[in-house]
């Protein structure tokens, strides 16, 4: 924020980074908040397209989708859901620490969040490897045991597209958190101004919410049928 200046002399030690085209810190904060939420709405529609395709195809091929879902590792899926929920807690605590002025706790909470995010991705990498080993990646290598091969390939196409897109968002999230850690080390954040942490928190929670829906829809469809 090269062109930002501290707003009020009284808080010179912990300044608010006010950009020159805004009239006040409150206006800037309102703009950041609205901007981030609008971006998250675009993400709702973005993932929503895939959820729409999923809905149509699951409705069209219920047995095939249930059968394919039983090839998912529900234990790893449940674990990963817990990991992400935990990471949302640590992210919320990072924002909280900044808001109450305990700036020294920001970095540890951010690092915990990043560690949990990385754990999630590692588990997904394990799962992907297993799926590929079992010939469940769609395309010329796909080989499905059982009669529902065609809708199962459709299921796995959606599985890889949706979780792949989600994983990409996690990776971007980790990059954003890295930037936050670097900025926090430079002492940029205070109770008076910590907007980037809050906004990044919104992004991180959103990616968690996407997984909250992905988990039951992909892992738990046909569990009650044996």
């Amino acid at each position, binding site marked *: 924020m090269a062109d930002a200046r501290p707003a009020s002399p009284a808080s010179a030690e912990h300044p608010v980074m006010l950009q020159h085209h805004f009239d006040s810190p409150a206006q800037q904060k309102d703009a950041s908040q609205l901007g981030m939420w609008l971006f998250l709405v675009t993400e709702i529609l973005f993932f929503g397209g895939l959820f729409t*395709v999923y809905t149509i195809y699951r409705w069209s091929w219920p047995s095939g989708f249930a059968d394919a879902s039983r090839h998912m590792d529900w234990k790893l899926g449940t674990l990963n859901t817990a990991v992400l929920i935990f990471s949302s807690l640590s992210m919320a605590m990072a924002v909280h620490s900044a808001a109450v002025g305990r700036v020294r706790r920001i970095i540890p909470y951010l690092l915990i969040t990043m560690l949990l995010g990385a754990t999630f991705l590692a588990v997904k990498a394990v799962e992907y490897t297993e799926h590929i080993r079992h010939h469940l990646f769609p395309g010329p290598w796909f080989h499905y045991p059982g009669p529902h091969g065609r809708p199962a390939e459709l299921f796995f*196409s959606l599985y*890889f597209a949706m979780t792949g897109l989600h994983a990409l968002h996690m990776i971007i999230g980790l990059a954003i958190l890295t930037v936050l850690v670097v900025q926090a080390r430079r002492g940029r954040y205070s109770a008076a101004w910590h907007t980037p942490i809050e906004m990044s928190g919104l992004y991180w929670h959103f990616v968690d919410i996407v997984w909250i829906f992905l988990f039951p829809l992909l892992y738990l469809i046909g569990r009650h049928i044996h």
Partner: protein
Amino acid sequence: MSAAEYIEPAPAEPRENYLNAGYGVRSWLLTKDHKRIALLYLASITFFFFLGGLFALLIRLELLTPAGDLVQSETYNKLFTMHGVVMSFFFLIPSIPAVLGNFFIPMMIGAKDLAFPRLNLLSWYIYMAGAMFTLWAVVHGGVDTGWTFYTPLSTAYSNGHVVATAVGVFITGFSSILTGLNFIVTIHTMRAPGLTWFRLPLFVWSHYATSLIMVLGTPVIAVTIFMVAVERIFHLGIFDPALGGDPVLFQHLFWFYSHPAVYIMILPAMGVISEVVTTFSRKNIFGYKFVAFASIGIAVLGFLVWGHHMFVSGQSIYAGLMFSILSFLVAIPSAVKVFNWTATLYKGSFSFDTPMLYALGFIGLFTIGGFTGLFLATLGVDVHVHDTYFIIAHFHYIMVGGAIMGYLGGMHYWWPKISGKMYPEGLAKFAALVIFVGFNLTFFPQFILGYMGMPRRYHAYPPEFQVLNVMSTAGASILGLGYILPMAYFAWSMRYGRNAPANPWGSTGLEWQTTSPPPTENFEVPPIVDKDPYIYSAEEVETVG
């Protein structure tokens, strides 16, 4: 009497303004000034306009004769595909918002810049990145699927550069999303003191509605293109019928954005018309709130009608019925606007400067395009004219007769403010006339051709259609020459044009209360607003105040 005769004496010495505040490539490529970014966009979209026009020229040359003798059918497929992709995504959708919207929304609300200036610059770079991908695809042989990318042709069978073009469109989509996001936040949070929502110029309302569509619709086509790309690259069979996938599902997802996209193209032009019609009839707009709410109504209803592109696709007939009824409804707010502009013109004190000529042309041509849209919303009629030249004529009346004339009208209206120079009025009027004649000669025959049954996207046709096709090609040549004229005289005016005063048209509106060209900060003193827009006479001050 021409509005230009209200001109005050123009200043002799150029004072510091946004054009001369900093020279050199870096000061332009790293600018955060919304006005400079608007000019960056102007350069880019002009290039793509002429590239899209080149494809149009080749199409019309092929269609001079009934036989497919200029190019092979595969090549022809690529020509109309690239014409559509370039014109829609790289010219029309950005045009007014990225140039005139970027330049004037901050000024119209009394702000120093948009809410997120660096995001604005990033939007332009994203646009250019997407453009480079698509240009690469063009140079290496193009795409032949039609701009609609229907599956399974695009995912499984096409030999063209589907992925490169799709990636280009995907990337550029984010430019659109970020611009819309920037506008919405700016309009909500950065209005000058006293500037309530119902004191905003209608140009701002139009862009707010446009931005809603950009933010809500574009992500869906982005993820749809993503699915096409992964299907082609990784063999994920999402739309593959062999696996039980449904190509019609692609069409639903595609048109969920691509229908509202046409409202992205027309709403900003409607905003221009509201500004021009009030200025050049020196009258308050008739029914301000109706026009403002009609913009929002078009944006909202526009999301409920996409199935009218799919009446013959195998979609359920009940869904078709519902989409047909909803498509009739979306015509209503557009008609409200046409009525209100007409009522504004009634008993107005006219001047027929070039912007007004374009506005009047818009009102007539948009109405014709809109009426034919109602024919197409009628399911039974559409079954017969779907995929014929009737459709092509319909959307070109709206996109070219409407949106592009709105764009040119806006460029002429605001050129003095943007450049500090007046364009040559006589030549501009002549160009407007050439464009109007050329346009109608190009596209009116196509209504007849379509009704008579000539299919679209065919490079050969039965000989009985030739006369109308020759007329259309003749019109296209005239239209092309007409478009070159403004490019030439705008460039000429930068060097040789008369210096423009702050308010050459005698218009109300904050952007005219500062110098031409404006300073980097837009206003010497941040303005405070205490009255409604478009107050042109003493009586109006009393009644509206």
